[in-house]
């Protein structure tokens, strides 16, 4: 069906390109934002673990 559309109507090339640009840009923005958030959240969790480990180790030493 899509191939027929492209053969019969050149305008569809512009339409499809517009939709591809739109959703690709939004997809990239969404995943970059999600990636940044997940990286900083993991950092937070590992920081908390470090602090807990450090505090428990020091209490044992004491």
């Amino acid at each position, binding site marked *: 069906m899509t191939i027929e559309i492209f053969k019969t109507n050149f305008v569809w090339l512009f339409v499809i390109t517009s939709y591809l640009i739109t959703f690709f*840009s939004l997809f990239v923005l969404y995943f970059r934002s999600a990636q940044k958030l997940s990286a900083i959240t993991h950092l937070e969790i590992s920081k908390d673990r470090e602090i807990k480990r450090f505090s428990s180790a020091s209490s044992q030493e004491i």
Partner: protein
Amino acid sequence: MFGLQNPKTFFNFSDQNIFWLKVIFFLTAIIGLVFSLFISPKDYLQQDAVRIMYVHVPASWISLFIFAVISFSSFLSLIFKIRVFSVYAKSLAPIGLVFAFISLSTGSLWGYPTWGTFWTWDARLTSMLILFFTYVLYVVLWKWIKNYFFAEKITNIVGIIGFINLPIIRYSVDWWNTLHQPSSITINSAPTIHTSMLFPLLVMFFSFCILSLLIFLMRYKYEIISFKNSRYDN
């Protein structure tokens, strides 16, 4: 003001609602795509090229709306020194930038089959390009300036000055003779487009709004955590 000055307001909202926002976005995007690409009728003059409108117009509306919010937040942040408003503006800026880019690129692709050119220096297109560069400047300043408080002040000024461009974009088609068509949907009068085209347009707009909110919540959360970390580190 609706608890917006409290950083926890959106933080808690994002924890509770991100999943449902994803579901709503996914469903509305599918409905919007089916209607805009297959069910909505061809235009009698533009034929299938009119389908570009369903991504171009919502992207333009959102990029304008986001910059209005950035300007308002910048004003509150600069005058009343409420720091969370500059975090709102900083989190929104990349979203507005991407929508401004979508508006310009899809508009260009719509222009070729209808006007016979990808670009012309008419008032609407030029003022929209200025908005895009204002977004670029805003985002780049946050990246380049290392001192948080100085960056905040400078970007607030850019946000407030950039507001001047918004009414120019909105009324450019009325004030000057432009190749760009006048607005089909205004707040004061009934829309001049048929319901069969208005429905997919509004669904796509709603879908993009949900996605913008989703991305905003993620970026806001990131900004709050990194701001907190930077304060502990210093």
